[in-house]
């Protein structure tokens, strides 16, 4: 079946909401409008306004209300229209949702999902194009899923909706329209497991979300030149499946990590540090970070594109690393 990323997410919500009457979506334009990117389109017709709760433009209270609803026994799917808006909700997300189980000595959890989307690709400017997953990954208590494929869009969301702890679920705005041939009935890997998308003997590329596709594209290009890359799709950044990374890196000894987020103190830093720590004696070269520039994103299409890695930079880096 050919399915778009957007529709896989939508289907995941539908299937999950049919199965679990305690799941409801809450956020701006999730109901009548059907979601800014169409993910919840039509859901209000099946599930009603009680389960697709359109909210005022009040991000802090949206996340806070989701925390309360989760504590009271339901399973909210709060939506932030853009991950860029997480800034105003970081108190509710990081001081409340993330810490409640711990601060209260394990009495209760906060089984909510915060759906949002990030990344460049729509010339949306500095305040609508960021990749802010590092804020989340750095905060103990939050799980973090970032699907890069249509299959994962479906299954990771289904799995996120079964977690006992808060999950931040970051989609990529550049992927919504992407269609892939998928069989959703194939059982998914366990929650928290990475997937090796491609195996090669020369270099390991560790990545997630949209950059998966750039890595795969680069890998194909490299294959034509005789360079074979392993591409790992992390799928979730918390939990982080380090075993899969280790198993790939140790025999090869060359690794690069690829992330759209700003390089400094970003996800790529964590991955590079971790790989180096754990696989040091196997590494022939430093783990190279291919990441976003440490700059805001411009609205100008060219500058926007230049601000994050593309397939050419990935391929070129791999070439030099293998050389």
């Amino acid at each position, binding site marked *: 079946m050919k399915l778009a990323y957007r529709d896989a997410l939508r289907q995941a919500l539908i299937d999950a909401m049919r199965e679990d009457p305690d799941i409801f979506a809450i956020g701006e334009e999730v109901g009548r409008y059907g979601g800014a990117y169409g993910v919840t389109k039509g859901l209000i017709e099946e599930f009603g306004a009680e389960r697709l709760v359109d909210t005022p433009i009040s991000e*802090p209270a949206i996340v806070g209300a989701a925390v309360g609803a989760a504590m009271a026994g339901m399973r909210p799917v709060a939506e932030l229209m853009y991950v860029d808006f997480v800034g105003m909700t970081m108190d509710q997300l990081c001081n409340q949702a993330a810490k409640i189980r711990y601060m*209260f000595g394990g009495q209760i959890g906060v089984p909510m999902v915060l759906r949002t989307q990030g990344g460049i690709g729509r010339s949306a400017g500095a305040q609508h194009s960021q990749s802010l997953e590092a804020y989340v990954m750095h905060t103990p208590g939050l799980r973090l899923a970032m699907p890069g494929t249509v299959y994962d869009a479906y299954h990771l969301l289904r799995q996120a909706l079964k977690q006992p702890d808060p999950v931040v679920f970051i989609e990529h705005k550049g992927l919504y329209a992407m269609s892939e041939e998928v069989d959703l009935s194939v059982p998914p890997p366990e929650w928290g497991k990475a997937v090796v998308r491609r195996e090669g003997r020369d270099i390991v590329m560790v990545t997630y979300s949209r950059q998966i596709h750039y890595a795969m594209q680069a890998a194909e290009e490299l294959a034509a030149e005789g360079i074979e890359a392993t591409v790992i799709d992390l799928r979730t950044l918390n939990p982080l499946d380090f075993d899969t990374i280790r198993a790939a890196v140790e025999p090869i000894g060359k690794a690069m990590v690829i992330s759209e987020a700003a390089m400094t103190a970003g996800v790529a830093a964590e991955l590079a540090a971790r790989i180096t720590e754990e696989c040091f004696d196997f590494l022939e070269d430093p783990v190279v970070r291919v990441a976003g520039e440490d700059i805001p994103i411009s609205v100008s299409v060219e500058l926007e594109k230049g601000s994050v890695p593309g397939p050419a930079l990935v391929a070129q880096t791999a070439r030099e690393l293998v050389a």
Partner: protein
Amino acid sequence: MNKDSPVGLQSNTNLLSYYREMQRIRTFEDRVGELYLRGESAGSMLHLSIGEESAAVGFCNAMTDGDTFTTHHRGHGIFLARGADPNRMMAEIGGKEDGYCRGKGGSMQIADMGLGHLGANAIVGGGIPAVVGAALVAKRRGNGKISVAFFGDGAMQQGILYESMNMAALWDLPVVFVCINNQWGMGTRIDQATKATKLHERAAAFGLNAETVNGLDVMDVIAAADRIVEGARAGTPGFLAVDCFRFYGHGRKDKSPYRTEEEETVGRQKDPVKFAREALIAQGHDEAELDALDKEITEEMDATIDFTIASPEPALDTMFQDVYAPGQPVPEPVRSRIERVLARE
């Protein structure tokens, strides 16, 4: 109302029981201050609710089993009024294993799901929006329950309150926002924090059923709470400001140099415990009877200190528990990570 509550006072709706509850709060606060000064309390911050007893007892009187609530950094009294076990409270404030949160939360992050206490909060305003979510659930389930956010006058200046009130009104939620207006937020008097000191007017402008009540007479608070809660149970969210006075410093050690002695003397005249006691005497209760009651309370609260001191420190490895649900993948402790890395295993 209140028929099914575990809280003692609820089954006996007369002034004597309210007095008793208020006195229990005041005595608990007194003892916890002592624990703190003795260095047996965890937490460098300890905020006592002395002077605010009528807000806690008066409002909680209108709450029943299954109602939920959040509190703030000065929430001991509210929790006691909802039926908390003072031993487990004191032990939590002491950072001990027998505390409500096994020593992780302390005074400002205490909670008990059994009593519907969704948590105190060290973030001013941080606990407010949760009641919107809890009330959404209550409404969805049609169980007649309300959810109540308690907070101080300082939180009236946090934007999230307005977002939360707006949602509560928009969705006709069974919510009450209770502002315990003790006139001060740290060293800032309410009129130094806002021009709009008639706090309930702001809530009214958002469409809530809003009142201000003088906290001197707990019976007035009870009456106001009954009105507001009745509305909330019927789907009109409410707001109640209870005017009172913060008797002592912001934290236990703060001597309030920023306010005058006269201000304090006048402020402390708004003493709901003393007022209730005098009313009881006027009703014919005698001093001896009340002294006996006070003594009983003193003994109960004295025991909490012993309980706390006797309670063990939490074991060091509990530190790694409850970051995530049991059975879920957990972060590796740093020490073991370092050892593994250095052993090149």
